[in-house]
Each structure stands twice: as structure tokens, then as C-alpha cells.
């Protein structure tokens, strides 16, 4: 590697992503734009350099910004996150890639005992602006350890932001916002949406959404589906299919689990009086538990039925051949909607 970043080639100015773009391209563009915008931004992880990452999210970054701005590390996740802490202490803004969800676990101690607490421990003197990108979730036919949904571990850890985009546009905007944040962000990328496309291009930049604002993707009067990340397209599909049953379903995309935008969610649920939370991680102790419990606390007297959850089973993530039975699908969501005690409404 070159001894100093001054030897790195001048950053490529031209955007790479073309309309329509995939989520993978939007993420790549966000990293490029962040690297151009701020010399403190450094990307590091396993295979992020020459290879461009196993999902090609960092494609071309080492070529265009030099090895020092986009660095292949030794194979050790605690080491990656631990050195990122040190880099952030110095004043850099590391963007770390964990290769797969389950391979972030070795860095758990660094995450919980340091990343999440350094600002607090130093009374604000040492914030750690680290973005930890983790491809997560299933639906890609991955073998063991390649499809975990680990958001519940992170959202229960005070001091971390937990962000997860569900659209191409949000992937760009939320990643830019995460890198710009002075707080550590666990940025969960729904890997099965990497190849989803949208009519989006970096040439027409749109407002970067602030972290912590949910968005109503579809409004509906009968009931509300509350979801995030990989389950958003499924919920939209379910809402479409529900029309046949005579249900007008709204869909809220949380976009970040921490901060959790309880104002937006509570307002929508108050309007419908019925809600189903949908996510693919194991249901027991999952994000849906917090969402359901909190919404119930806030909206109890507006509820016609309990807030239900449609989630993955409480089992280790199943093999490719069985994952369709595990993942929340349209039918299971509609079944849950059907159980919302309509007769009493």
C-alpha cells in the first residue's frame, strides 16, 4: 500500500450509476460521493479493494481512490472494527464492510463495549463517526451463516443508530446520511434487494432524508403494515393483493429502527386501529416485539385488535430449499390481517 493518501489518484468525479440503477449501484455511488466530499472518509473490510466486495458494492473504489481510501484488511472482524475505532479517534470517518451478517459477530464486543459507548464515556469528547455496513437477511439462497437478520442485537444496544434502506433512493440517501452522522451507525443492507432497480440516478440528487424518519409508502384505511428493509416489497405486494379481499392496507417503512419514529407510526396506527408488523428475523425478541409493544402502549384505545407480528420462525435460518417457508410472504401477511378481528371493528 502506498505510504500516504497524497499518492492516491484524484477522485473520479463522474457518477457511475446510470438510470435505472440498482440498489448496489446506488450504494456504490453513495460511497464514491462520500469519498469525494470528505477526505476523512475511509472504506475498509475484507475484499473491498481489488475485488470490490463480494457484492461489488465497493466496485472500483480502490482503483479510483487508492488503496489507502479503500483498504483490504486482514481477515478479522474485531480487528476491522477495532482499528476503525482508532481511526475515528484520530479524526477519520471509517466506513466498515462486514462481509455477511453472521460474520459481524466476532466484532460484537468492540461494537457493544466501545463503538456504542465511546461518546458517552468521554462526555461527548470522542464521538465515533463509524458506519458499519452489514449485508443482512435471506432470500438469496445462501448456505448457513449467510442469511442472518441481526438487527435485534443492534437496536437493543444504546448508542448505536440502526438504519436499513428498502429502496434504491433511500440506499443512497441513508448511506450518505449515515456516513455524515457523528454517531456510529449500523447500516443494514437487505442483500436480496441489492439487484432491485429503480428510476433513480445520482445526476438528479434528491434531498437526503434525515436518519430517524419513517415514511408512509402507501396509505390505507383498513389496517397498517409496519415494516423495514427486505420486507417492504413483500408488504407492498400484500397490500396490493389485499384489495381483492376488500382491505385497504397502508404500509409504513421505518427506514431506521434507532431512532424509532414512533410519532409517525403511532399517528398512522391511530388512524386505522389495526396493525401488523412484518420482518424476517426470528419473531421472539425481534424488532417487531418492540414496535408492537410500544405502539400498543401509545395507541391502546385506538386499537380494534392486538398488533400482530409476522416474522421468521424462531429457528436458525433455514437452508435455501426451505427459506420460502420461513420468510414472511404475502399469504402469511394476509392471514394475519385476516385475524385482526374485523367483525368487532
Amino acid at each position, binding site marked *: 500500500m502506498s505510504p500516504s493518501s497524497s499518492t492516491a489518484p484524484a477522485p473520479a468525479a463522474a457518477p457511475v450509476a446510470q438510470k435505472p440503477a440498482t440498489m448496489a449501484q446506488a450504494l456504490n455511488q453513495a460511497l464514491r460521493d462520500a469519498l469525494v466530499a470528505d477526505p476523512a472518509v475511509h472504506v475498509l473490510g*475484507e*475484499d473491498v*479493494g*481489488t*475485488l*470490490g466486495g*463480494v457484492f461489488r458494492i465497493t466496485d472500483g473504489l480502490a482503483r479510483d481512490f487508492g488503496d489507502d481510501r479503500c483498504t*483490504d*484488511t*486482514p*481477515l*478479522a*472482524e*474485531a*480487528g476491522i472494527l477495532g482499528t476503525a475505532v482508532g481511526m475515528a479517534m484520530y479524526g477519520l470517518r471509517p466506513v466498515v464492510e462486514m462481509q455477511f451478517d*453472521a*460474520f459481524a*459477530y*466476532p466484532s460484537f464486543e468492540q461494537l457493544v463495549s466501545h463503538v456504542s459507548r465511546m461518546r458517552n464515556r468521554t462526555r461527548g469528547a470522542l464521538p465515533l463517526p463509524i458506519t458499519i455496513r452489514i449485508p443482512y437477511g435471506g432470500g438469496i*439462497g*445462501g*448456505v*448457513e*451463516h*449467510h442469511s442472518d437478520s441481526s438487527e435485534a442485537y443492534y437496536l437493543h444496544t444504546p448508542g448505536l443508530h440502526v438504519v436499513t434502506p428498502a429502496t434504491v433512493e433511500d440506499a443512497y440517501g441513508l448511506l450518505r446520511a449515515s456516513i455524515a452522522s457523528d454517531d456510529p451507525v449500523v447500516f443494514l443492507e437487505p442483500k436480496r434487494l441489492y439487484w432491485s432497480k429503480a428510476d433513480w440516478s445520482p445526476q438528479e440528487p434528491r434531498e437526503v432524508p434525515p436518519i430517524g424518519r419513517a415514511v408512509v409508502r402507501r396509505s390505507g384505511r383498513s389496517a397498517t403494515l409496519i415494516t423495514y428493509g427486505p420486507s417492504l416489497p413483500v408488504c407492498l405486494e400484500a397490500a396490493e393483493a389485499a384489495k381483492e379481499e376488500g382491505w385497504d392496507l397502508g404500509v409504513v417503512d421505518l427506514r431506521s429502527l434507532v431512532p424509532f419514529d414512533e410519532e409517525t407510526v403511532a399517528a398512522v396506527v391511530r388512524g386505522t386501529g389495526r396493525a401488523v408488523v412484518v420482518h424476517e428475523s426470528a419473531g*421472539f425478541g425481534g424488532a417487531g416485539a418492540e414496535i408492537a409493544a410500544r405502539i400498543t402502549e401509545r395507541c391502546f384505545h385506538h386499537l380494534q385488535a392486538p398488533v400482530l407480528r409476522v416474522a421468521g*420462525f*424462531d*429457528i*436458525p435460518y*433455514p*437452508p*435455501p*430449499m*426451505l427459506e420460502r*417457508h*420461513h420468510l414472511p410472504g404475502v*399469504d*402469511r401477511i394476509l392471514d394475519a390481517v385476516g385475524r385482526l378481528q374485523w367483525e368487532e371493528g
Partner: protein
Amino acid sequence: MTVLDTPAWRPRTEAGPLLPDAAPFRLLGTPEAARLAPALLTELYGQLVRGRRFNRQATALTKQGRLAVYPSSTGQEACEIAAALALGPRDWLFPSYRDTLAVVARGVDPVEALTLLRGDWHTGYDPRETRVAPLSTPLATQLPHAVGLAHAARLSGDDVAALAMVGDGGTSEGDFHEALNFAAVWQAPVVFLVQNNGFAISVPLAKQSAAPSFAHKAVGYGMPGRLVDGNDAAAVHQVLTEAVDRARAGRGPTLVEAVTYRIDAHTNADDATRYRDDDEVAAWRAHDPVDLMERELTGRGLLDDALRQRTADEAEALAAALRERMHDEPRLDPMELFAHVYAEPTQQLRDQEAMLRAELEAEQQS
């Protein structure tokens, strides 16, 4: 005279040379090879040829969608085979995700060994029965398992050794370090085999380690380190056999680095041309483990056309059987998803099971 001059502060032995050899140990093509038993050489040869064919067949099966993914060990067959053959029947093998070949060479049914890679959810074989741990995907995590098992055997007065395999990349993980340290402190009967194949996916050795060799890491744990030509099946076999014997004799763990090369891409899904030159691959093809063995056998007059043909036929038969047996998709019972999470399913799992059962019945009816 201070306390530092007493043996108390440094209670550990320093007998024997601390550093491993600087050059990898070799046998094939050297005068030493003359004393190797013909039966061993022909056995290794047969295994190498079958192993190579197995790798090719398994890769082909990924193209046909019969395997979800296959990390080939082509070019590394000598390590795989030697690891399996160095073990006695009651010893344990702890493979990493790339080591299907070692598992098969140890005697596990090939289809069982491929179960996980096939998209099924379990190891296929019974680890206790076969004395082969599950192929480990989280890198280096299997190394402390091997230490614990070896330690438990030793505590039980049981004459069992463990051999654990890891890649050059895997040595960077904390688990590698913790496993070696526990093994050395406990004097556990375990052998660590680092297959240094030059890459961790796309990351070359120089970005992984600055050590003179991985064998040199042994020094820092107080165990012997051996460096061996990983494409020389006889050399790897000898070094591992010695290390296993040493372990079994209660003399503690050994770290072995086998220098080899991954000829194929990381897996069938990888494009290795993105990060390495053909020249490098060509240079290693000229030091091929199967060729090295063929040359040795030929030199000693042990390889005639008949043996060559019979070996090739055996390899083809193995491949054909694999194709045949892997032809049908495995039929997985979704209801079994709940069966092995706990000894007894929890109430919540029983509820989820009931829901899925109802869905499946509804599916069948429609």
C-alpha cells in the same frame, strides 16, 4: 542475582530449536523419497486423482444447480488427502468449509459430505460416528473446538488426537490465536494445519500477514512449527503423521503450514481474474500435486499404464456415482425445521409448527 535470574519467572522449556525451517520440507523428487513405501505412494496417488476428479465433478454440479455453491480444493489435493490419511480411525478431523475432500478421503460418504453445500440444512453425516466435525463456515471457529475435544479426550485418558484445518486468511482471526494458546497451555493432542494457498478470496498473502511464515507463529505459543511443501503429498503426510504421533504421545500440539495454491476461483461464484494474474496460476500448475506424485511413481517404476488406467477409471466411477446420486433434488420436509432446535420444541415452536402445517395442507388442497 535477582529474581529474574531464577527459573521461577520463566518456567517454560526452551529445548529444541525454536524456529521452523526456513524452506518448506519436501520429499517427492528428493533422495529421501526412496525410503517411502510403494503402497503409501500408490495410495496417495489414487486419492489425489480421485480427489481432483471429485473437485471437478462437484464444480460441475454447481452449474447444474445441484449444489448451491462449491469451494474447490483443486491444487490443494495433497493437503486434503494427507490430512485425512494422517489420522487413525478414532482421531477427529475438524475441517474448514473448503475441506470437503479431506472429509471424503476420511471415508465419509461423498453425498453426505456435500449435504450442506447442496442447500440442505444439516451436515449429512453424523460427526460422532464419522469423527468428522461439521465443515466450518465461520472461519477459524472450529479450531477451539478441536482443542476442546482433544483436551477432553486427554482428560478421559483416551488415546485420541484431533487435526484442525484452517486457511491463511483464517489465521488472522482471534479464534486462531486463542485456540493455539489453549492447546499449548493444556498440551492438548491437536495438530493445526494451515493451508496457505496464497489468497483469502481476493486478498493476497502480503495483505494478510507479515510473518516469515505461518509456521513461525508456533514460536509465540511454545509449540513446534513445521513448514512443508503443500503440493508434496508424501511430505505433508509425513509431517502430519509425525505431529499426530507426537500429540498422541502426550507431547502436545504442533502447527503445520503447508504452502500450496488455490488453482480454481474461490468458489464457482467467484471470478479470480479480477484479482490475480494467469502467470501466477501457470507457475503453480507447473508444481502440481498430482504431477509431482506421478513423476515420483514413474521414476520409481511404480506407475504403469494399467495402474494409470485403473486409477482413472476409479475416479470416473466416483464422479459418475456422484452425478447419479446428486441427480435428484433432495426432498426436504419443511416440518423438520422445528425438530432439532431443542431437544423438546418450545411452546412457541409448536405453535409455529402448527401454523406451517396448516399452510402446507392448504397448499396441497389448492
